[in-house]
């Protein structure tokens, strides 16, 4: 089996596995006042400090959540509610056209159900939101902006956004900028304080930590209206008994990922360059998508003209190569990716793409296995596409 879908989820790092399993056998609610509770609380707070140190923020700015989607929802809904309650004129939500659905969908929901005005900002052909696009959108009416959300790096094509420049624009107008950094932490230098962001989402399982745990980093003074009400954990922003083992695993993973980041990224980049060169040599009409330079080291995304992405995926799966078309709905129906459409691809091109993503367990053998399997698979998928197209002749009705 050749696993080339690390952007979906990546195996846990040994450090994270050790830290998490050590806690799984212990009892203690971090909110309890007795010794067991204090022990658990110590683990949670040390984890918070570890996460803060790795991300360049203060421990008090880290809110643990149940993952990236929950962090994004808390940022979008919580900050919209809080900001618009302070000033009813703040109705606009500005997001890039290539956001993950964990940002797109809460923003759309706020527009549909809560009176927000959603503005989806166009990106260039590499998937980058240009700072001047953001500036023009804010400038149209700065006082009406509730928040801006732009991902750090794209999960499908890997393009990295110019966060520092975007952040400078947002700060100039004093509007909060949230960034979904789920794909960035662990492979790119992410320094929250230096970024000038107001909020940042991350998740454990994309960087070698456990599933089901993440964090929203919130700059001091930025208080969202909670989604979850209850015991008042996490400074009343995120109620619910803290998951000590998962948090310990998350902290260990972030610490290890950030410590090894340069070497890890160099390794991924080396593998990716071999993969990209090999794919383009084997399938000369393949199109390599995303920003050529400013991109995640582990993601390679291609369009294969004349092929259906899900045909390619199925044929590769049958040969033990696991990858992704980059977009699937809950029932598993592949829709043309909104990211590629926003980058100017047509529907056929958007449907013809595959994402290969590398991670800490990837090797040159994985790339070699892909390059061996890919040419016959592309050839067959192209033929299947031609047969389907040929069949679409008009049907003659008699009588």
């Amino acid at each position, binding site marked *: 089996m050749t696993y080339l879908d690390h952007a979906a989820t990546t195996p846990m790092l040994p450090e994270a596995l050790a830290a998490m399993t050590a806690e799984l056998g212990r009892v203690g609610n971090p909110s309890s006042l007795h010794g067991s509770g204090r022990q658990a609380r110590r683990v949670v707070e040390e984890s918070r400090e570890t996460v803060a140190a790795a991300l360049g923020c203060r421990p008090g700015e880290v809110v643990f959540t149940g993952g990236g989607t929950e962090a994004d929802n808390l940022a979008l809904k919580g900050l919209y509610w809080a900001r618009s309650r302070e000033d009813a004129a703040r109705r606009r939500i500005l997001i890039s056209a290539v956001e993950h659905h964990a940002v797109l969908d809460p923003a759309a929901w706020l527009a549909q159900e809560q009176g927000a005005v959603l503005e989806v900002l166009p990106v260039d052909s590499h998937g980058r939101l240009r700072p001047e696009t953001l500036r023009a959108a804010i400038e149209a009416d700065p006082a009406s902006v509730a928040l801006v959300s732009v991902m750090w790096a794209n999960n499908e094509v890997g393009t990295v956004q110019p966060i520092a420049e975007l952040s400078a624009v947002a700060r100039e107008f004093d509007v909060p900028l949230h960034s979904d950094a789920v794909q960035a932490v662990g492979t790119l230098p992410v320094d929250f304080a230096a970024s000038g962001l107001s909020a940042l989402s991350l998740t454990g399982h994309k960087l070698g930590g456990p599933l089901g745990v993440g964090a929203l980093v919130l700059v001091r003074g930025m208080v969202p209206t909670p989604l979850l009400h209850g015991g008042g954990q996490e400074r009343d922003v995120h109620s619910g008994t803290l998951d000590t083992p998962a948090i310990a695993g998350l902290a260990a993973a972030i610490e290890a990922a950030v410590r090894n980041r340069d070497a890890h990224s160099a390794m991924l980049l080396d593998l990716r360059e071999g993969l990209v060169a090999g794919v383009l040599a084997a399938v000369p009409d393949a199109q390599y998508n995303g920003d050529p330079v400013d991109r995640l080291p582990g993601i390679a995304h291609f369009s294969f003209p004349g092929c259906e992405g899900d045909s390619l995926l199925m044929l590769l799966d049958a040969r033990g190569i696991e990858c992704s078309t980059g977009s699937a709905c809950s029932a598993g*129906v592949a829709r043309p990716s909104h990211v590629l459409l926003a980058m100017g691809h047509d529907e056929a091109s958007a449907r013809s793409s595959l994402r290969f993503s590398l991670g800490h367990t990837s090797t040159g053998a994985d790339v070699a296995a892909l390059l061996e399997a890919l040419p016959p698979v592309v050839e067959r998928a192209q033929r299947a596409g031609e047969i389907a197209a040929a069949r679409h002749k008009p049907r003659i009705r008699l009588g």
Partner: protein
Amino acid sequence: MRVLAAMSGGVDSAVAAARAVEAGHDVVGVHLALAEVSGHSVRDRGKGCCTPDDARDAGRVADVLGIPFYVWDLAAQFRAEVVDDFVAEYAAGRTPNPCLRCNESIKFAAVLDRALGLGFDAVCTGHYARLVDGPSGRELHRAVDPDKDQSYVLGVLDADQLAHSLFPLGDSVKSEVRAEAAARGLIVAAKPDSHDICFIPDGDTAGFLRSRLGERPGEVVDTSGAVLGSHSGAYGFTVGQRKGLRIGTPAPDGRPRYVLDVSVVDNRVTVGPAEALDVLGLSGDHPRWCGAPTLGSFECLVQVRAHGDPVPADVTAIDSGLQIALREPVRGVAPGQAAVLYAGTRVLGSATITATV
């Protein structure tokens, strides 16, 4: 063989796939997403996801069988080739069979073509019908379970399509299939059968047509032309229909009246007594042969609806159509329905009924 199992999420296709696996085939499960649900504002989420519950059930079965499973989005093709055709046929005063149309243009055409293109040898479905390899090629036969037999809706498949089909349930009765699903631990074992047209889940065909075609008020008349009542669209009536005629006054002889004719041209529905529905002659076009064409004049059995009884007939077939003389009358035959020809249990072929005498 490399087999693509079409898995609807129901019990029949689940057991069919299980039997294909057990027979030693290399099986991949595919759920066909056919229904279009109204879109989502930012993301067209609903579109293409058939019923997500059915897709999930099919996926659960595939996981238990240990086979790969994918969802293929055929919603746009299904709409164009089946749903729009269904509406257009009713609008033209005919009564189409959408299941037959789906088999003809989706399951054993678009899906089969794609499967063959991707390197599969056959498509496996949960239809109740038997494939028999005879002296002159593969033959399509009725299933052993007369209540479930679906050979009628497969009467549009040609020799090539039959050569790449697999119907593992043809020798079983439904109760055996359910028992087998339960014994295999498939969660769909007790799932109710679907009877309705899949894209009209509430069964209200008239309401569905009204929403697509709008109201077209017209007259309900008897065979003498006397106006008996009104209707809101002739397309909503089918020859042989008795209910929903909304005729105030009873017939002079007090006997029930039936739709005898639907004329879209003058938007008129003609009603009359049951015996006026008797038909002895049929014309059909668009002939399809489940094997080599049987041209010329011959005797066979003819069935005009999915759950109708076959009647003996004398058929004259040419390339472009059929003339059928029934040896006993059949009631309520509507243009648009398929006349399927049988020799014993074997399906010879079919044609679309254009006129009745």
